[in-house]
């Protein structure tokens, strides 16, 4: 538990002192979404039709792009090797890192998502499901993305490769995340879809950090 707290504090402090890592995914999210009204049409009806998918895909890409640097700096400075050889199970500091990363990059996305939904002309009643679905979905995306980041940490062409590895794994979350919002727009009950998102979250939270730790071990060659 002490290892968890120490790593969490360290990561939060590092991210806080380097705010570009927090702000860039957020700006990316906002910018990608605002491309769509320009590309498709500013017509409210058409926008509302594609809004759930657009907001969700943009959030997914923002999380994915933020994953690339998750372990890189630690690997370059040697912290990663320390972490893997420390006398605690690697899962513990890894989970702390993931939590810190999500708090600093995922949570801001959750907070701005209603604004973007409104800009995409989503009806007001769909804004709450949008926010909830992103709240339940982005932690899964962070954990699954971290598996890819762990496997590609030592490679210098990480970016595109990471996308190729991770995007297929993101599909279930995307289906249910965007599905929840679409259901809400159509006036259906969203509890069931959100429950499935929660189930996916439970699955990724319980098994994901183990896979991330195993991936880091493989990448560091021991």
């Amino acid at each position: 538990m002490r290892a968890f707290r120490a790593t969490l504090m360290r990561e939060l402090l590092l991210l806080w002192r380097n705010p570009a890592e927090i702000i860039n995914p957020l700006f990316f999210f906002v910018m990608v979404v605002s491309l769509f009204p320009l590309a498709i049409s500013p017509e409210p009806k058409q926008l509302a039709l594609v809004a759930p998918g657009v907001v969700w895909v943009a959030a997914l890409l923002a999380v994915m792009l933020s994953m690339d640097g998750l372990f890189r700096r630690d690997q370059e400075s040697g912290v990663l090797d320390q972490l893997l050889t420390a006398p605690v199970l690697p899962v513990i500091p890894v989970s702390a890192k993931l939590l810190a990363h999500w708090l600093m990059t995922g949570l801001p996305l959750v907070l701005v998502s209603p604004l973007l939904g409104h800009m995409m002309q989503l009806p007001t009643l769909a804004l709450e499901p949008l926010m909830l679905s992103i709240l339940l979905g982005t932690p899964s995306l962070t954990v699954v993305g971290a598996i890819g980041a762990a496997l590609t940490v030592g490679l210098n062409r990480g970016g595109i490769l990471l996308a190729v590895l991770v995007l297929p794994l993101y599909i279930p979350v995307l289906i249910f995340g965007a599905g929840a919002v679409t259901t809400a727009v159509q006036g259906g009950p969203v509890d069931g879809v959100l429950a499935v998102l929660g189930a996916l979250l439970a699955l990724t939270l319980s098994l994901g950090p183990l896979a991330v730790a195993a991936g880091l071990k493989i990448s560091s060659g021991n």
Partner: protein
Amino acid sequence: MLWKTIKRGYHQLGSPRYFYRFSSAVLPWLTPIALITFVVGIVWGLAFAPPDYQQGNSYRIIYIHVPASSGALMGYVAMGIAGMVAVVWRMKMAEIMIKAIAPFGAALTAISLVTGALWGKPTWGTYWQWDARMTSMLILLFMYIGVIALQNAIRDPRQAARAAGLLAMVGVINVVIVKYSVEWVNTLHQGSTLKLVGESTINPAMKYPLLISMLGTWLLYAVNVMVRARTEILSRERRSGWVKQLVAAGGR
């Protein structure tokens, strides 16, 4: 007794050298059997099986489509199991298998998608529809590509294989989730006509050539995996004594 034999066989096949010897003995007869089974199944299906009462002759693509799809799925699951063995027990042969299984599986997935599209046009009036099975096959192709890409990106072969193995393990879980999550959207694809348990809904005259061509495809897959594994063994073990002897003796 039987269990002991299985256990010993498993441990022996875990040694690259033993696997090389074993496959040298198996391949000369497995290859022709695989080819013959495959050709018999395909020719029987494409030329002699009766036409379908509804779909006419267009259904005959099933003799390529179904074997390819089943091979693709089994290949990925096999890769996931090999991945687990490689990550947990660090067995050399499992690492080699991951690398050997991927290319043929990716090719089968692509074949399954293309033949499916061609079959879809006359029966459903569309080449492509985002229904459960087609979508999960497409994702399966992406995941094969991911495994191959990761393997090519890492220089150290052992590390590459274990990384790819971990990805394949995660991928197996993902395929299942994708399948059921897309199933929420209505499915256009016909249900399975072949069932292991219970009555198949396919005419026996159509079923046997299908079973034979499936068997043929699986055997060809096995041959392909063995050949690839042998090449990989030689390249990995090139510094060991037995490979040097083998090469000096002319590679037999």
